[in-house]
């Protein structure tokens, strides 16, 4: 099979003498660094740590659901397990996954800057994240929380005796970490683009992160305030959410979902940003409809704020209001579809090759499309009454978050691994891992659509025996999926020592980050580059390479 990978001659190739990795040594040089690339690495390790914990909890959930009765753990333990799984995966893995690691590493490189606008705030954001993470771990060690990740009132404020306040404080801190990341990105993208880097020459990765940052800054404070109100309600009975004191529990839902629905786009937009880069590189074509894809990111960010009540259709909200939100929800499908269609058109007549990042990107397109379209089912008022709070909704958001976002994250990690470390990951085994992940995912989550349609409710440890076959499929799939995720955790560290030397531009990609050494210098560019071509201009790259060969020859 053809490949575009071009590596330097391995017998003579060496890693660059100076890079951000060996500029300084010692723990202090990492913990007090202002370098966006090192902070990205700190984030990479931390989110992987929390992903493993969240993954083990997911494994426990699937193991419990292998048999109809609640036999592996007590039912209240089960409640705690799925609550912690949700909290950790959403706030400590998905929200920071691509932006804080890959985005942190790449935004300055892609806009041609030496660092983010506020390096110290960037480091502070990692410490806040770790603070939040430790509080969530503390919650778990102290006995957990069983509200579900949504902290539903009055359950969280009046009826539960678990560690709601500790968990809420953890999320509060992690929220500020994401506000700081968003702030840093927006200022960097506005003020630090290199000469010639106009808005419409920016890679779509940057556009995606710009849209994400807008949501992070405008949405996250609402979550912070809402969690503070929950804590105050619990500790001081202020009565905002308590009907007996004139409050309204649904007010909590409005406030919570005002952040948490846009947060879904915080999670998926950076994934879409990665996919644009990967699809273009491995089909050797400029992304079809660049401007439409760029603006669709911003449109998703804006529409994302107008749809939150679709999480509340069955909670007793006004029917007229539900009608408005149902319609608005359908609108979000438009920019998402623009992206999918434009990526497909990019593939059309492209020179497609099937390296690992591309396999993950294909996985993303297929699974995200299923996830997105089932969202339309749920946005339809009549269908929603039947399907919400069943396994259908669990399957729907796992298709988007795991099938979409996690695939995109892995695509991104593999795609930029040579740039981050200077070495290639082993291609054959990583392709196998990508295929295993895809198969494992389908086997795990597709049966859940059917289970939900048949009426199996979510959040219960026990279920009628009729549902067992599909649940066994799902649990078996989870084991396959687990292997798919374990493999990269083994071969990526292995490649740090034994991987082939990647050279500057193993994929023949056009981004500014690929025109410098791998791993980059601490200051990124020895000279600030001048952008004199459009994004994804493969002709420019071919001319440049041609010119270089002639000069050397």
């Amino acid at each position: 099979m053809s490949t575009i990978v071009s590596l330097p001659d391995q017998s003579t190739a060496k890693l660059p003498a100076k890079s951000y990795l060996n500029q300084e040594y010692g723990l202090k040089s990492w913990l007090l660094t202002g370098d966006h690339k090192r902070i990205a690495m700190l984030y990479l390790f931390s989110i992987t740590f929390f992903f493993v914990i969240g993954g083990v909890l997911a494994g426990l959930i699937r193991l419990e659901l292998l048999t109809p009765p609640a036999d592996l753990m007590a039912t209240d333990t089960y409640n705690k397990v799925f609550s912690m799984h949700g909290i950790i995966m959403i706030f400590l893995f998905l929200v920071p996954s691509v932006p804080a690691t890959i985005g942190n590493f790449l935004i300055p490189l892609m806009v041609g800057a030496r660092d983010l606008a506020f390096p110290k705030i960037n480091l502070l954001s990692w410490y806040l994240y770790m603070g939040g993470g430790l509080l969530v771990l503390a919650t778990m060690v102290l006995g957990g929380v069983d509200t579900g990740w949504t902290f539903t009132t009055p359950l969280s404020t009046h009826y539960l005796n678990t560690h709601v306040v500790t968990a809420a404080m953890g999320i509060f801190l992690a929220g500020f970490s994401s506000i700081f990341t968003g702030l840093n990105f927006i200022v960097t993208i506005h003020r630090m683009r290199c000469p010639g880097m106009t808005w419409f020459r920016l890679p779509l990765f940057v556009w995606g992160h710009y849209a994400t940052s807008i949501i992070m800054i405008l949405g996250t404070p609402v979550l912070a305030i809402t969690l503070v109100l929950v804590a105050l309600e619990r500790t001081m009975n202020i009565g905002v959410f308590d009907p007996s004191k004139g409050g309204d529990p649904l007010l909590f839902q409005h406030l919570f979902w005002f952040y948490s629905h846009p947060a879904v786009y915080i999670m998926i937009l950076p994934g879409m940003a990665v996919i644009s880069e990967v699809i273009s590189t491995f089909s050797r074509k400029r992304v079809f409809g660049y401007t439409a894809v760029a603006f669709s990111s911003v449109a998703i960010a804006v529409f994302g704020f107008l749809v939150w009540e679709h999480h509340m259709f069955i909670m007793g909200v006004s029917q007229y209001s539900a009608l408005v939100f149902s319609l608005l929800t359908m609108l979000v499908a438009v920019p998402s579809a623009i992206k999918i269609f434009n990526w497909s058109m990019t593939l059309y007549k492209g020179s497609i090759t099937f390296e690992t990042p591309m396999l993950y990107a294909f996985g993303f397109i297929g699974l995200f499309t299923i996830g997105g379209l089932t969202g339309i089912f749920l946005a339809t008022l009549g269908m929603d009454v039947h399907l919400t709070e069943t396994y259908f909704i669990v399957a729907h958001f796992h298709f988007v978050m795991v099938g979409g976002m996690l695939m995109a994250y892995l695509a991104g990690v593999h795609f930029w691994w040579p740039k981050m470390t200077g070495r290639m990951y082993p291609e054959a085994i990583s392709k196998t891992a990508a295929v295993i992940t895809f198969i494992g995912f389908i086997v795990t989550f597709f049966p859940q659509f059917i289970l939900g349609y048949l009426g199996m409710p979510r959040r219960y440890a026990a279920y009628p025996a009729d549902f067992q076959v599909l649940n066994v499929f799902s649990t078996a799939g989870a084991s396959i999926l687990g292997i798919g995720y374990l493999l990269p955790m083994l071969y990526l560290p292995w490649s740090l020592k034994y991987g082939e030397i990647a050279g500057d531009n193993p994929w023949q990609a056009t981004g500014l980050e690929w025109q410098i050494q791998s791993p980059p210098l601490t200051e990124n560019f020895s000279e600030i580059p001048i952008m004199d071509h459009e994004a994804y201009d493969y002709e420019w790259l071919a001319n440049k390479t041609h010119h270089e060969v002639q000069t050397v020859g």
Partner: protein
Amino acid sequence: MTEKTQSTHQDAEVHVVKPPVYLAIFFALLVLTALTTGISFIDLGVFNAVIALAIACLKASLVVLFFMHIHYSSRLLKLTVAAGLFTFMLLISLTMTDYISRAWGMF
């Protein structure tokens, strides 16, 4: 390019606010606080909350415009603040679609 240098230049010009302005705003805030407190002793029916919130908004505007220098800042910064207010408006107005037409008391 020239446009970019110009805007950098513009932002680099720090507007110096004279102490009397700060003092005037400070006293205005104190007066408004006193007003909020005073008015809370008079029962105005539905206007209790309206007036308290109106005064609070006025105070917040003073802080944002003068203490936080938005009055003297570039249009980009004004737009940033406006974006926050716009989002807040979305939150309130779309939440209201529920509150004004909910089937109160029917369940």
